[in-house]
């Protein structure tokens, strides 16, 4: 559940990107990677589904189709005539509309988690790495300290103990997601900081915040992007685990994790669509994220040309 060191290592291997032409190269390389391009297309489609899918159905995500209740295994399956494209869930609500809405939440969780990690982790790591000395020591010790807290346990506690909300979920995800990023960014910053262009900037009297913002951070982007892409699926998996424990989003809202959990619970009730559709979206999207992450890494990593 903790954002894997795998991705950390993978991202850490990337040398800081030098200059614009490299970005161009990377773009070309990326588009030569078929799996990554197909994944990109799939993700765009999933995003479109999440944002516009609601317009294709007369049902909302909370409306109950009373005619279905009580005989869902027999009549609740996917059907074109009654416009339940994916069938209905265990309470007779349209599964298509719920998957649309769940996709929205899950993507949001993934992206917000990644964003928090990008913003906080980059700032933290860049400052620690660039300023160095005692500031660096203190800042990185804080990261070490936070990394040894059993987060999943603390998050379970938070969600159990306080009235749950999506805000609490974001707080929980935000707490853990930036730590690895901060470490990677710091490492990269250390190697950039001694480069000539930074020394030149220092010599011409540019202020420290400005150097970090204008010279250090742009050169970290490659690493940050790759790592963030690989972080999105981790966050989505993380949320699904929380949902499995029954601690996810509040009804009638839902998420992939909650839908899959509902489907898995009904696995024996002759309602395969309840598991099938959400699981398909979940698996396909996560595959796509992983492939894009790999593709980006290969594209931005000059060594593996």
């Amino acid at each position, binding site marked *: *559940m*903790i*954002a*894997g*060191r*795998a991705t*950390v*290592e*993978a991202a850490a*291997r990337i040398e800081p990107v030098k200059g614009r032409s490299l970005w161009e190269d990377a773009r070309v390389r990326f588009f030569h990677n078929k799996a990554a391009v197909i994944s990109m297309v799939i993700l765009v489609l999933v995003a479109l589904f999440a944002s516009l899918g609601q317009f294709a159905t007369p049902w909302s995500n909370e409306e109950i189709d009373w005619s279905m209740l009580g005989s869902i295994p027999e009549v609740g399956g996917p059907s074109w005539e009654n416009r339940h494209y994916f069938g209905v869930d265990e309470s007779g609500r349209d599964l298509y509309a719920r998957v649309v809405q769940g996709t929205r939440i899950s993507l949001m969780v993934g992206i917000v988690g990644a964003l928090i990690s990008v913003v906080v982790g980059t700032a933290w790591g860049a400052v620690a790495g660039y300023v160095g000395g005692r500031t660096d020591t203190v800042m990185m*010790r804080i990261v*070490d*300290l936070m*990394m*040894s*807290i*059993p987060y*999943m*346990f*603390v998050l*379970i*506690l*938070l969600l*159990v*103990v*306080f009235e749950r909300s999506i805000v609490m979920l974001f707080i929980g995800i935000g707490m853990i997601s930036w730590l690895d990023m901060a470490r990677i960014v710091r490492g990269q910053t250390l190697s950039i900081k001694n480069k000539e262009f930074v020394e030149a900037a220092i010599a011409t009297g540019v202020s420290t915040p400005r150097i970090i913002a204008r010279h250090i951070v742009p050169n970290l982007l490659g690493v940050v992007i790759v790592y963030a892409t690989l972080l999105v*699926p981790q966050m989505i*998996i993380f949320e*699904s*685990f929380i949902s*499995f*424990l029954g601690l996810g989003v509040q009804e009638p809202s839902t998420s992939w*994790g909650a839908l*899959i*959990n509902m489907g*898995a619970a009904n*696995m*024996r009730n002759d309602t395969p669509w309840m*598991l099938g559709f959400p*699981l398909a979206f*979940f*698996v396909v999207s*996560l*595959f796509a994220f*992983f*492939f894009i992450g790999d593709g980006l890494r290969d594209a931005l990593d000059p*060594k*593996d040309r």
Partner: protein
Amino acid sequence: MTAFILKRLAIAVPTILLLIVFSFLLMEAAPGSPFATERGVPPAVLANLEAKYGLDKPLLQRMGIYVWDVVAHFDFGPSFKFKDRTVNDLIAQGFPVTLTYGFWSFLVAVAVGGSLGVMAAVFHNSWLDYLAVGISIGAQVLPNFVMAPILVLIFTLWLGWLPGGGWRGGQIEYLILPVIALSTSYMASIARITRSSMLEVLNAGFIRTARAKGLPMHRVILRHALKPAMLPVISYLGPAFVGMITGSVLIDVFFSTGGIGQFFVNSALARDYSVIMGITILIGALTVLFNLLVDVIYAWIDPKIRY
């Protein structure tokens, strides 16, 4: 090296102390009482319960007593819910279970994941590579709360080969399904890390030299490539360990193994404060120690790191 270990220990101690205080205060802030029931507990009965568990003392005094008992005696106090047991009893029962299946899952994840990764790297861009990558991503994205019931459905109900749950002292047939369910996603991560680091190592100069000398491939891999390629894997073991312990929540729910995860979730739900704190602190301390151990191993293997 000794200085390095001492330095890390010096951070570990305040970390754990902070963790104790943090979990204590979180429990303090939590609404809900461990003694609450649908019926409601009469005030006199509640007063007796609070007196028995020392909840009638002021906050700071209680915290002081708690921290002292934990630090000086490794005593986490009595459980509020399991009325005739102490937290130490519960940990003594649950922790060895979690550790056992965690250990085997760990081993399986490293062995299978490592081999899969090496294979994928050696046969880079062949169908074997694609298969290995496909399997590992697939294993990573299939939620284990979906996999666990499917495993039981297949191996218990349809085939009747394995028990669907229980522990019975950790007999092998009770171990298999939990280990598969727990190790899969870590196996996948390890395969992916191994693949990419192996690819990098195989492209390095010294390997090309070894190949050029005419050494057979398997020798090159075993003698020269494996050790450096395992470095990133080793640094992943820390998070993997935490993940395995966390994953025990799910394993215990599905396979009734009686491990620590079950105690944790149930205690959180029942507000069994002392058990929650005991387990959180234990896991936190172990995480700190394990990370330390990983760093030491890393330093020992990687000649580039100096202290």
